[in-house]
């Protein structure tokens, strides 16, 4: 039966007309084999739009929330304000416990940096600290030197009425070095001077000291060194740095 059945079915072939009709139908149904591609493109449209908004959203977020400058404020509370390209505070970072307490008492997020510094200066605790003859250091850090200078000028003008407040400008690398030691930039500069005068001083010690205490320590160590050098009839290296720090503050 197998051979007879094979004979029967071997003689059955699909008619050319049937094949042609099928091909024609398939071409029409698939719009010359393009329909699925179009469908895929249609599916892609919402995906592309969503992706576009995600990118725009993410890009916008990055554009707005990435600090272009940092204002480092040190008394003993140490704070760092991240300032975006629109001169608004987008991040507030406390670098010690006092800084955290100060941060919690402020509401400076998304304020302009001028308003933020004003609010800090007007803070009761800060006023109380400054009235005790403590020193406040404000350092502007960023890649854009022109903008930094402009910010520094504004801050200097803004704080000109305040006693014991000094403003500086610094570059990003120095700030990164400061952060790697767990110090704010103002204290880091002081730490560098201190370390040259007394190499046993550690960043942890400096972190817990107020700017006034640091300055007093620098003065005292500078004087000791100067005395020793005078006794030796030489000019000491530490003295020069102590003087440099003093000069910088002036």
């Amino acid at each position, binding site marked *: *039966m*197998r*051979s*007879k*059945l*094979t*004979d*029967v*079915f071997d*003689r*059955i*072939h*699909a*008619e050319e007309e*049937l*094949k042609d*009709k*099928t*091909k024609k*139908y*398939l*071409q029409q*149904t*698939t719009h*010359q*084999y393009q*329909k*699925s*591609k179009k469908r895929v493109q249609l599916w892609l449209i919402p995906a592309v739009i969503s992706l576009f908004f995600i990118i725009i959203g993410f890009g916008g977020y990055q554009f707005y929330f990435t600090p272009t400058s940092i204002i480092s404020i040190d008394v003993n509370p140490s704070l760092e304000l991240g300032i975006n390209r629109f001169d608004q505070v987008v991040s507030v970072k406390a670098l010690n416990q006092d800084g955290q307490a100060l941060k919690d008492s402020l509401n400076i997020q998304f304020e302009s940096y001028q308003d933020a510094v004003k609010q800090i200066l007007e803070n009761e605790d800060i006023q109380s600290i400054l009235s005790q003859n403590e020193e406040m250091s404000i350092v502007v850090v960023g890649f854009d030197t022109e903008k930094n200078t402009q910010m520094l000028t504004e801050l200097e003008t803004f704080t000109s009425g305040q006693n014991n407040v000094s403003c500086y400008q610094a570059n990003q690398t120095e700030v990164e070095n400061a952060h790697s030691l767990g110090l704010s930039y103002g204290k880091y500069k002081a730490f560098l001077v201190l370390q040259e005068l007394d190499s046993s001083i550690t960043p942890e010690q400096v972190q817990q000291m107020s700017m006034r205490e640091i300055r007093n320590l620098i003065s005292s160590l500078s004087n000791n060194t100067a005395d020793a050098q005078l006794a030796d009839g030489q000019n000491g290296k530490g003295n020069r740095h102590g003087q440099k720090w003093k000069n910088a503050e002036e």
Partner: protein
Amino acid sequence: MRSEEEVNKAIEQYSDTIRRICIVHLKNYADTEDIFQTVFLKYILSSVSFETQEHEKAWFIRVTINACKDLLKTAFRRYTVSIHDIAEQVSSLSAETSLQQEHLDVLQAILALPVKYRDIIYLYYYEGYTVPQISLIIKKKVNTVYTLLARAKSMLKEKLGGVFYEI
């Protein structure tokens, strides 16, 4: 979606098989056209990647059998094929394929079987699939296929008598 070139190649390669399965299941040419369109459209839209040509052929056989069953399931097509219909179909095939009478008797006997036996006879005797392979194609248990094959053979023996043993 598969390319036109790929589809045309498949049409040339598998049309005869699909046509034969249609003859086993359907009684008119218009239905065959429907099946061709359905099967190849499914092929175009299918994302199945075939490991071998045998795999692809088995896919076409399964899809064609299912398409035929679906077509026959539709309410207005739910009918049983009468002896008259089979005779008419076979005579039209006879004219087209110049089959001898004994061949026609075999075909007529197969077409007179209930549908579930026809597939198995076709796949077993003509395509040369083994029972386990048939069970995979028609998605039935191996033992069920053995039973169906045994019943189909028995029915054919009854109808064809001595011809059945001339294998």
